[in-house]
């Protein structure tokens, strides 16, 4: 039994497939990058620069080809061997920071932070985030909350508010209420569906 109430973190790779490509080619760092699904059907990963051009998730390649050419978007076919290997590395780092890591998808994992003192959780998350960045080159965002759903919400807030430095901790109830009033809940996958 832990002395603290349950706490989870959701750590998620930013534009994960695109970030994997960027690790090995820094020329991609400040340009729009997208990764296409199998057979180059549609966009399945977009960097912030590509999103800003209006490229939508799942948009068919033939519909955005001209836009991509006109704006110098770097387009990649998916390379799942690479993404899987980068995902393994990132999870290996997570395991150094949390005893229980549940891999939720190729770029999202839940970490059990129950044994970490509430006051030091955000600090641990920042430390983990910078270690993942240094060791693997993958940028991440971390959301912390008393349930997995709230960790997901916190992750969404961390992603949308760069001034938070990639970490959002909703453990504190007052802090949680403050953010809940600001966030459009339907934007957060898994909450909007409820």
């Amino acid at each position: 039994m832990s002395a603290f109430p349950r706490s989870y973190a959701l750590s998620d790779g930013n534009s994960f497939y695109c970030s994997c490509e960027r690790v090995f080619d820094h020329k991609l760092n400040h340009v729009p990058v997208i990764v296409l699904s199998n057979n180059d059907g549609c966009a399945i990963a977009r960097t912030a620069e590509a999103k800003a051009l209006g490229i939508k998730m799942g948009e068919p390649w033939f519909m955005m080809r001209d836009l991509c050419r006109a704006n110098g978007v770097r387009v990649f076919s998916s390379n799942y061997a690479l993404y899987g290997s980068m995902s393994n590395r990132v999870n290996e780092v997570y395991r150094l920071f949390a005893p229980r890591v549940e891999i939720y998808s190729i770029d999202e994992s839940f970490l059990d932070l129950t044994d970490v003192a509430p006051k030091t959780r955000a600090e641990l998350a920042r430390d983990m985030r910078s270690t993942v960045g240094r060791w693997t080159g993958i940028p991440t965002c971390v959301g912390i909350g008393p349930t997995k759903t709230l960790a997901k919400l916190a992750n969404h807030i961390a992603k949308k508010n760069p001034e938070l430095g990639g970490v959002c901790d909703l453990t504190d109830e007052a802090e949680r209420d403050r953010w809940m009033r600001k966030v459009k809940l339907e934007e957060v996958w898994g909450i909007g569906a409820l």
Partner: protein
Amino acid sequence: MHLIHSSVRMDYLGPVAEGSIILPRVATTICAGFPSPADDWIEDDIDLQKILVTNRAATFMWRVQGHSMRDAGIFDGDVVLIDRSLSPKDGDVVAVSVNGEVSLKVFRRNGQLEFANKDMPAWPMHENADIQVWGVVTYCLHIPRA
């Protein structure tokens, strides 16, 4: 040959797979000169993987193309293991990204980067270049066969 005056080119090969490469340990050192009989004993088997890779999450294998690291013992066609978790020290061979192009250089304490080939002119480090240390070379795999 145009490559002789340029940085090595680097191709990412992949991660180091999980698992072990077990070899029986015969001697701690193989002497290139007069053999020392004291070294010649059999101990536990050794795991080559454990020797080569101390941090698997941060270790990447790249193939080297070019001749600019020759004097550091890194030759055209060699495979290097690069650990991104290490901070470079003076004299380390590092992978650097220079304007997005990954190559190898010798790292100096003052932040200078150098070729390791006395037959080449000094590497021109341009002031406005975007330079990032990508990782530190921990091992070089060289095939000595003719």
